């Protein structure tokens, strides 16, 4: 788990960020915040420490959060708007929104009128017009998880990080430019399901924990609990693991 104390007062290069900020007039909208949250959540789900078994509780909570956002976005119809006008502008906006999410407390302390990011009130809908340009498919954003993660979490060298962040975002936008879909299904159809399909992702993680012999060992005297949950996928994953180990040795 990557823990970062919020005590860090200066995000180095604060001046640079503020310079960029000066050019952005719009307060990140609710949709943008929500999008950032969605991306952050997906990154978190992807980046479990694969050396040790991932924390199931944390994964389930994050997955539920993603589902909530998905549901809301589907109701809003926001999924359908993926027109990305200017990648540069959009990526900067996204950088800003993430920074502001991190710095909301500071801004508040300094008296800036910045909304509380902890509570996404549905009433807070400003600048809907901006949303269409800024909303983008989150599917591909997951394809560059490492860059995204390392640069969102580690603010030690934000100047350099900002550059990388932008680069990875550009990659994302490149792949998106030609995509335009009108429905959620189309959106997902071109995506590698194993990355984005939440359910598969969850199953993928869970299948790591499903082992045939463990299931049988753990419930000796409980006939009511003999439902065998193994499915092909888990068996295949186990097989993969075994083959991996054999091959590596």
């Amino acid at each position, binding site marked *: *788990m*990557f*823990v*970062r*104390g*919020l*005590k860090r*007062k200066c995000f180095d290069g604060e001046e640079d960020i503020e310079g960029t900020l000066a050019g952005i007039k719009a307060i990140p909208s609710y949709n943008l*915040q*929500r999008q950032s*949250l969605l991306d*952050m959540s997906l990154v978190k789900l992807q980046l479990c420490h694969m*050396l*040790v*078994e991932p*924390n*199931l*509780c*944390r994964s*389930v*909570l994050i997955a539920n*959060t993603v589902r*909530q956002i998905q549901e809301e976005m589907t109701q809003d119809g926001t999924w359908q708007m993926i027109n990305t006008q200017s990648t540069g502008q959009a990526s900067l906006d996204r950088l800003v929104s993430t920074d502001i*999410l*991190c710095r*909301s*407390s*500071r801004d*508040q*302390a300094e008296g800036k009128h910045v909304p*509380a*990011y*902890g*509570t*996404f009130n549905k009433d807070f809908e400003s600048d809907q017009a901006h949303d269409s340009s800024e909303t983008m498919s989150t599917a591909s954003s997951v394809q560059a998880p490492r860059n995204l993660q390392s640069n*969102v*979490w580690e603010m030690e060298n934000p100047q350099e990080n900002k550059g990388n962040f932008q680069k990875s975002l550009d990659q994302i936008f490149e792949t998106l430019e030609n995509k335009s879909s009108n429905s959620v299904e189309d959106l997902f159809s071109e995506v590698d399901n194993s990355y984005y399909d939440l*359910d598969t992702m*969850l*199953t993928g993680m*869970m*299948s*790591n*924990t*499903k*082992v045939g*012999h*463990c*299931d049988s*060992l*753990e419930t*000796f*005297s*409980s006939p009511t*609990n003999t439902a065998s*949950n193994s499915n092909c996928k888990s068996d295949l994953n186990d097989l993969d*693991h*075994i083959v*991996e*180990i054999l091959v590596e040795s």
Partner: protein
Amino acid sequence: FSGAGGGNDIQWCFSQVKGAVDDDVAEADIISTVEFNHSGELLATGDKGGRVVIFQQEQENKTQSHSRGEYNVYSTFQSHEPEFDYLKSLEIEEKINKIRWLPQKNAAQFLLSTNDKTIKLWKISERDKRPEGYNLKEEDGRYRDPTTVTTLRVPVFRPMDLMVEASPRRIFANAHTYHINSISINSDYETYLSADDLRINLWHLEITDRSFNIVDIKPANMEELTEVITAAEFHPNSCSTFVYSSSKGTIRLCDMRASALCDRHSKLFEEPEDPSNRSFFSEIISSISDVKFSHSGRYMMTRDYLSVKIWDLNMENRPVETYQVHEYLRSKLCSLYENDCIFDKFECCWNGSDRQVEFLSLCTSDLSNIVMTGSYNNFFRMFDRNTKRDITLEASRENNKPRTVLKPRKVCASGKRKKDEISVDSLDFNKKILHTAWHPKENIIAVATTNNLYIFQDKMN
């Protein structure tokens, strides 16, 4: 608490601190659990490196009547080792998740310690004499030449330096697919439960090759998983009753007499959500990280991310009391989500039961009247249910003069910061107090920071 004096307010003073001084924390030294034994004489800690350290309270010094005995290291042993699950290509952490003491039955002490997968019963015994005067062996163990033996003698026990030995008496393994988060010893002192994310198992302390599965919330299709078990505990008096909490903020009370598999709860405790506070983080912060019965068993306490709630077992639809631990974090939830702090699992504990008070307040008030829980910046909080007063204290080496009353701390949520207040932005979220324990009989508390153990006691006159 330590305000206007008088009354029953406890005045907490620093007593001791254990652990390394330097700021550079070795990962293995991170304290992961703290527990007093039933008499309070022993205090056990478990750490991320799989070690258990037990402290023993010195006998009270008659000349120093103004302070209770100090806690000194009694025994240290490696409880769990790191393991590697070759089938899944995953490490099994040796971190000790929980320690629970058994009540003392003979000269030895017994405790259960668990990591993610395996529970162990440890016997801690003292040896302060050894036999000397063997006929066939020299004192150093070498065998004597039999021809030199001309007389026979009976070996006698002679005193020796105290040696404390820890030996594993039972190993309860291979019963949990998921990570064990709780163990709880039944009031029959013969059985105990262990809970992981999806299942709860019942064990007999003497039997290691079998356990009964009593709760299973694993869905047939793992894709449908939306809720996990976060904590479980047996009722202190009723040996067939236990509760378990979930990541959705619910507590289920189950009766093992109802059926072999307690998937259907007897009671479901859940507070309806406050619509004005609804956000994307509502579910995460409602996830219960700890549940503890009161001494009488009439109440139970739950800890979620921002609050402590007291429930009356007779009322399922809402808690009878709610205490805000650090409400000022509500507006920072997004940042706390980003840095994963929102997933921190804080524990909570009740005060010990004071025997004098016990006699006097037989029917009137519950003995469990103070709750304690940790927060960030090495702060910890206490709430008095009777007076409705609360206090914030800090575990820090800076204020470590014995018998000096700890100064209450205050966090300034917004607006002008008064002198001595700390603003929310200055809080150090790396310094978190997750584990605290209260001596079962006296006003002595153990508070674990990341790698240090602080002991505070009330100011005796």
